[in-house]
């Protein structure tokens, strides 16, 4: 397993995202409210480059006490990344799909060591892209 230096944690945009590739294996690093997360850049849906997608606040529908809809609104608490292939949206804090939390991005170990932001490069990524199937709408292996 290889540890990759991303840069100084303090210099990372907040909120922000950086996708890095080493020898064909890519990882997305996200920062929100000063907290870092990192995921393999492989959508559990069909293998798309999910971490390179649009970052956008979660859309919620507000329901009043009398059960009437108050319309759509952007969440102040949750931010998603949308896979550019098909729009599957995952919370960048948890990696879980907004509508089906059993489906999640594959997390990558990320740590801050002496101010340096480092991720551990996953193994088997290309194989997971190659054999990715859409079928199981359950938690990624």
């Amino acid at each position, binding site marked *: 397993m290889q540890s990759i230096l991303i840069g100084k944690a303090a210099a990372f945009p907040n909120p922000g*995202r950086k996708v890095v590739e080493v020898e064909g294996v890519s990882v997305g690093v996200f920062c929100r409210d000063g907290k870092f997360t990192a995921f393999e850049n492989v959508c559990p849906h069909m293998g*798309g*480059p999910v971490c390179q997608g649009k970052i956008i606040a979660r859309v919620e529908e507000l329901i009043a006490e009398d059960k009437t809809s108050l319309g759509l609104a952007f969440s102040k608490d949750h931010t998603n990344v949308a896979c*550019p292939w098909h729009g599957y949206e995952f919370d960048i804090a948890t990696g879980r799909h907004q509508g089906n939390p059993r489906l999640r991005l594959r997390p990558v170990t990320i740590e801050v060591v002496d101010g340096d932001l480092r991720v551990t490069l996953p193994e088997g990524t290309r194989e997971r*892209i*190659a054999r990715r*199937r859409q079928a199981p709408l359950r938690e990624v292996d």
Partner: protein
Amino acid sequence: MQQRTVKDVRELQEITIKTDTRDILSHATIQAEGLEDYFLIDIDAHVTESSFWNEIIDLIDNDVIRQMGQAMMMRPGTTTALLNTQPGTLYQHVFGRIPHQAVLAEAVDGSESHRFTELARRSMDAMGIDYQVVFPTPMLVLGMHPQEEIEAAIGRAYNRWLIERILPEDERIKGLLYLPFNSPEAAMDIVRDFGNAKGVIGFTVTCTRNRPVHHNQYMKLYAMIEETGKPLAFHSGFHWGDPSFLQLNRFISMHAISFVHYSLIHLTNWVINALPERFPKLKLVWVESGLAWIPFIMQRLDHEFMMRVCEAPNLKRLPSEYIREMYFTSQPLERSNMKLLEATFDAIKAGTQLLFASDWPHWDFDPPSSITTLPFLSEQEKRNILGLNAARLFNLEVKRMRPRAKDVLAARPGVA
């Protein structure tokens, strides 16, 4: 643990409308590395038309209609003059979340080909496709245009453009001619004038229209197409303006139902009026409604036919038996329940009747891995669905036409 410095790391950018197709689809190319000995045909793909619509307008035969279109194109921001663009068309990219649906705005500098050709070629190379059938997106609802003469004029101009400008550029691109179905005489002119053109492998009726396919006015047209030996494809689409769909408040709801709705109507009319008995050699392909609707209509028509045979007296077999002899394209393949999907494949005899379609660059596209990763298919069935069934149906030579996946990966702009 081995540690590397940042200089070994390449940063990848957000995918936007300007990202090169080969970079967007690089993971599909990785998937295609395992398909090098497969032969692949994509029966349904689309290309952004905003950059070439004026070329089609210029080919309209009628002087007045051509002038109308050209005048509309002069207005800044107009990209699809004369067309009946529908509510919801711009919703498809999920409001910026799926950039390739919005527009492929990438550079094609250095290519001597038409932009349309180059973009199609890039998608074929990236997904590992040998042949691809392409179709402009907004023409999918042209059958709902209130002016029949506009459908006929645009349809003929598009066919000319395809035959004269695009198909000669790359033998990997094939065409299904647009039939202006609301004008049967004009549709017959298309078959007669362009049916034998190089690269034309069949004909398309867009399903989004309110014309009964069993009407007597179409019998000469079907006879002509049957005589050519080339298939007739019914390509579905959506139409939020349909009165029933006006109740649906979200695009997802309308889109999920609308494609299937039109396919159900036309297929039902086709079968119940015994057109398979009247045109036994006419091969039908049903495009872009997925597959889940087919077992439903097979069972439903069989069930009711046995009680109301007096309404379908020319059927000599169960409706489902006729449907099983038709061809279907795979996209958008419903895969949330493998047992249901496997039963569907069995019901439609997918091993011989199913044709792979990507629908690239639309928001619900399927790469070839949508077929290769299905656990219940045999190796031969996968090969049939991905290309061999289509080669047999459209009389295409089984011949490798694409570059190797590893070469495509190495040459994509994001790496080079």
